[in-house]
């Protein structure tokens, strides 16, 4: 009963168009003052201590690093390198777009940022070369989604934050601990590479069918030069992933290191950015981070209320009673997340849904890391499905193409991604192999 009221209230408040964070907060307050015995002090304390976790602080650092990389000419050099590597195959620049999105995704944690960084340079170039705009938009909007699947990823941090510290039980009643940021990052590597390959294959296939232009094969000398030029950006991949894997840094420290590193290469090595631009980058990063942290604060309040009312446990028990099994449950989760993905943005969905769904998943014996990666893939698809899909808006903004046309343009890649989602959902080994192999699980 109380579950219905909470969700109903949240849905109504969100539909009025007020910020998601405010809708969450007001739901909690309304419920608190009218229906429950939770002491207000407990909630006030949660409000203060909710975001006092060092893990969460990876988010502002990754945003800052991403902003430096986007402004500082790292993307430009990665594109040049990618083009010399794959530009001569069918699909030419399109294939290069997928490859550069994958490279940029490995240094940045956000999808729209990846679309902007790669798309704003490559899309005009593709159109000039004679590719149909549709093809270009489809490639870039969909490959940009790699940003949150290939580590580092802000949404993965969100998932860990949302589920960490929850008391959940496995199928036989044993404690199941939530996934750590390090585990999620490592688990994202193989699915990320696989998706990059599948998107590249789709691009190649369409291009081959239609005989789109290719580039001349770059000489090894050119390729090597492009590699050297982009080396400083590529080195960041090793710093972040190597640092986390070897235990040199915690994910948050790695994020801070990459922010400083990105600052140094943008301002002093590549010099695409002057010192005078730094405050602007800092301010816009702080602005974005504060918005996300504010949603997190209120989402933590919300999930505290849910847990207090035993709602996730009740849902878990109910689903187990239905005899749905993990196959049916994951199908329902996918549908639910895809639907949510059409109208909301990834961080809010993850923060609201993960704490509710995670106990059920654990009860059905689904690995927290596998479940997390599945959520991330759903979020990626959500970013290219209308009416609300951040990547679509960004791509349509760069290409000046209408939203409807953009949505149609991504269809072939969308189908590829849906097939990929099925693969990730029902073959947990793809996700779990690497972290297990490295002894992280």
């Amino acid at each position, binding site marked *: 009963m109380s579950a219905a009221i909470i969700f109903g209230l949240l849905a109504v*408040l*969100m*539909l*009025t*168009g*007020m*910020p*998601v*964070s*405010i*809708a969450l*907060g*007001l739901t909690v*307050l309304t419920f608190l003052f009218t229906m429950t015995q939770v002491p*207000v002090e407990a*909630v006030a*304390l949660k*409000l*203060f201590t909710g*975001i*006092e976790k*060092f893990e969460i*602080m990876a988010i*502002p650092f990754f945003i*800052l690093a991403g902003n430096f990389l*986007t*402004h500082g000419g790292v993307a430009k050099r990665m594109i040049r390198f990618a083009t010399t590597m794959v530009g001569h195959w069918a699909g030419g620049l399109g294939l290069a777009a997928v490859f550069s999105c994958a490279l940029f995704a490995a240094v940045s944690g956000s999808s729209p940022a990846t679309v*902007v*960084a790669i798309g*704003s*340079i490559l899309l005009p170039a593709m159109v000039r070369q004679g590719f149909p705009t549709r093809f270009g938009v489809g490639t870039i909007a969909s490959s940009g989604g790699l940003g949150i699947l290939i580590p580092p990823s802000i949404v993965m941090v969100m998932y860990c934050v949302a589920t960490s510290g929850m008391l959940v039980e496995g199928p036989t009643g044993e404690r199941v601990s939530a996934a750590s940021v390090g585990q999620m990052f490592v688990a994202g590597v193989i699915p990320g590479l696989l998706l990059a390959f599948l998107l590249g294959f789709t691009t190649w296939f369409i291009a081959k069918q239609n005989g789109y232009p290719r580039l001349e094969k770059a000489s090894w000398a050119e390729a090597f030069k492009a590699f050297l030029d982009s080396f400083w950006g590529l080195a960041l991949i090793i710093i972040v992933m190597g640092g986390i894997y070897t235990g*040199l840094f915690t994910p*948050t*420290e790695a994020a*801070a*290191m990459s922010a400083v590193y990105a600052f140094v290469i943008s301002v002093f090595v590549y010099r695409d*950015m002057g010192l005078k631009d730094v405050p*602007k980058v800092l*301010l816009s*990063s*702080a*602005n974005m*981070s*504060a*918005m996300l*942290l*504010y949603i997190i*604060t209120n989402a933590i309040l919300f999930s505290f209320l849910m847990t207090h009312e035993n709602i996730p446990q009740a849902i878990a028990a109910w689903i187990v009673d239905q005899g749905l099994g993990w196959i049916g449950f994951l199908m329902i989760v996918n549908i639910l997340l895809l639907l949510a993905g059409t*109208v*909301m*943005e990834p961080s*809010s969905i993850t923060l609201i849904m993960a704490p509710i769904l995670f106990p059920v998943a654990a009860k059905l014996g689904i690995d927290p890391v596998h479940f997390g990666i599945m959520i991330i893939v759903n979020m990626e698809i959500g970013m290219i499905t209308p009416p*609300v899909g951040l990547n679509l*808006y*960004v791509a*349509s*903004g760069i290409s*000046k193409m*209408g*939203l409807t046309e953009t949505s149609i343009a991504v269809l072939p890649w969308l189908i590829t991604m849906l097939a990929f989602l099925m693969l990730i959902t029902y073959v947990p080994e793809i996700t779990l192999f690497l972290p297990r192999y490295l002894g992280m699980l």
Partner: protein
Amino acid sequence: MLLRLLDRLEEIIITTLIAAATILIFVAVVQRYGLSNSAQWMGWARTNDLPWLAAIFRSIFVTLNSFSMTWAQEACIYMFVWMAKFGAAYGVRTGIHVGVDILLNALPARTRYGMVILGLLAGALFTAIIGALGTQFVYHIGQTEQTSPDLEMPMWIVYLAVPLGSFLMCFRFLQVAWSFARTGELPSHDHGHVEGISEADEPLATEPNLHPRDLKPTGGEK
């Protein structure tokens, strides 16, 4: 004039905090590794009978060891909490807070007007309540001797961010509501735009449905 000062102050606070936190964590990590590495190298130089090298590493070790960075993590968290609270208020002014506006933007202008005002006032209400709760909470903590574990800073100072930030945010919501009521314009943040990357300042072809649209007849093109 006073308002402009407040605006600037808000921007300076959050910019400084994010920069300081980043540098702090960077220095802490460098110090940690400098310390363990210099100790190792010192041992290596000694076993290989290179006293001058050992002396160099010894002095590096001593310098690095002379200050402790164990408080860095805690300080970083508090800086970001402060940044988050003031940044959220700044975010109201820049219109960065995302919402579900799909229904809202489909409504006729008149109804939409009411809904937007309602949304903004709801924001003001929520932040005012949190501000009041926060003030009470800080007052209670202030009566105790609670300090933070590493920095040994009084906790009420740390928690002061919540009431201050919330009241500032409340003020920003009212400010935006007031200017919307007069001009029909809302601040909106374009999530797809990155300065210096997109060509010049051309308008987006479409607007994300994450923020309420303006009420001007040319809604959608800015």
